[in-house]
């Protein structure tokens, strides 16, 4: 595979990560579900590309594009962590507002009645 092809495929992966970032900007649970599929695809494509990468070794354009991709992944990570931290802290706040504090002084879990949660 020519270096130009490596660059093109890295650009395609970055475009998917950028798309995931756009979804993370509207960080609702539904948006995150869509984001999962996009990130899965991006990961698969990048994994498939790995064996061909040595053919682009030393190519400065490919290196630059790989660094851009890393920047996009860092942006996605930052957005995900920001949203997670927002929700976790909000839940703690909701807990303290609605159910007070535990004996240890932590915010009590927010009451969430009449629902069941199945995991598997």
């Amino acid at each position, binding site marked *: 595979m020519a270096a130009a092809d490596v660059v093109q495929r890295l650009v395609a992966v970055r475009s998917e990560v950028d798309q995931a970032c756009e979804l993370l900007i509207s960080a609702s649970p539904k948006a995150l579900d869509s984001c999962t599929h996009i990130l899965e695809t991006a990961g698969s494509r990048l994994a498939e590309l790995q064996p061909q990468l040595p053919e682009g070794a030393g190519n400065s354009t490919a290196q630059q594009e790989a660094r851009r991709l*890393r920047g996009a992944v860092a942006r996605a990570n930052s957005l995900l962590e920001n949203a997670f931290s927002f929700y976790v802290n909000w839940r703690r706040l909701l807990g303290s507002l609605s159910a007070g504090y535990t004996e240890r002084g932590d915010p009590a879990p927010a*009451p969430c009645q009449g629902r069941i949660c199945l995991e598997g």
Partner: protein
Amino acid sequence: MVSLLSILSTSASALRAYEQVLNVTQNNVANASTPGYAKQSQQLCALPGDPEMGATGGVKAGVIQSARDQYAEQNVWRQTVLLGQAGQNVNSFTALESLFDISGASGIPNTLNSLLASFSAWGQSPNDTAARQTVIDRATDLATSFRQAASGLEGVVKDTNQQLQQTVDQVNNLVGQLQGYNAQILRGDRNDAGLEAQVYSTLEQLSQYVDITARQQDDGSTTVLLGGQTALLVGAQQYSISSTFQQPDNPVYPDGLPEAQILGADGSDITASVTTGQLGALLNIRNQVLPSYLGDANQPGDLNTMAKQFADRVNQLLTSGNVDNGDPPLAGVPLFTYDTTDDTNVANTLSVDPTVTPDQLAAIDPGPPEVANGIPLALSQLSNPQNTADEINGASFTEFYGNMASRIGTALTNATSQQTVQQSAVAQAQNLRKQSSGVDLDAEAMVVVEFERAYQANSRLISVLDQLTQDTINILSTA
């Protein structure tokens, strides 16, 4: 028994309550496109209904509660302050980067290479007057480059000082506006949705400059703190900040750059609590980055260190040699001069002694053994150091300069990446603010549970992508 009068009273109370609901709805419609406006909701409280006890039931209007969630608002400010910081870093490091050319085509790297090349040429023709004159000319060029670099950095210091003052003024102006809104609220306009929107819009502007915490008090006024501890606004009382420049006690270099400080309204030094936002970035540039090149009360600065060590080494080699080996032998003279009284002023004053003539440059290393071109050869070794006297902290002069330049380049790259991330983070925080307004507690708790589940899956995928990307960079970097 429930009297007719109490039934009428219940009806009147309910009518007043619903009238307020209509007012709130009207406000929401009227302010739908007002910047900073969040939908308000009217709480209706049930009144106890016990006919035996004469309690007639019905509803009454509670205090109007803005649906704007303080928590989500604070989250927007937290991201905005980081965006302000990244933006300021990009601007400041871009200005600095233009002063450090690492291509070798101009500035210090260019003139340093030329001077080192002229030493080498002189070594090949140690008695050639033209070669000696070239050394003097190239040394003059290098000294000029150092002075220009120092002057350029001083220009950035001046600009940064101005920006610090302007940013402090801007903070005070915005807090002044908030003070005006508080005064209006305390006069009785506390339920004016348009006014509340102006308060939040102003707080959002303020958050790009400094890290703020704002709390709405029971009287409706907003209290604003800087860095979580310094009061900027309490009720109708504004506490203005100011900037000043001061040397610390017992400075090692008394003529070095004084430190920029931010003072609270009571004159106390609150610089340490201003670490983020545009003001935090400016303080970091002014008190950390620029002194690392130009020096301050505690350090000479890398540009001055390089200028001094290079000049001293060249002078030391030249004065250790002889111009001729007569009896007595005639020693060489130093080439460079600078302000020896102030180590933070070396680059700015570096020059070639105008009285030095080509025939005063010593080429002969007296040895033993004596070498006719020993001194120019030793000088040309400065490009490829063979002993520690030709190095600064283990690096050649060229490498040392490269390190100075690359620090700026790396900082600019990081700031640019951070700016891109923060632009998205602010947009995300604004979306989260919209989502959390007016959602009931039960539904909100479910959103959190669902979010955590989706988070786990995405977090694992991003971790895999991160590793794959790192592997990709590693493979592509192998030549």
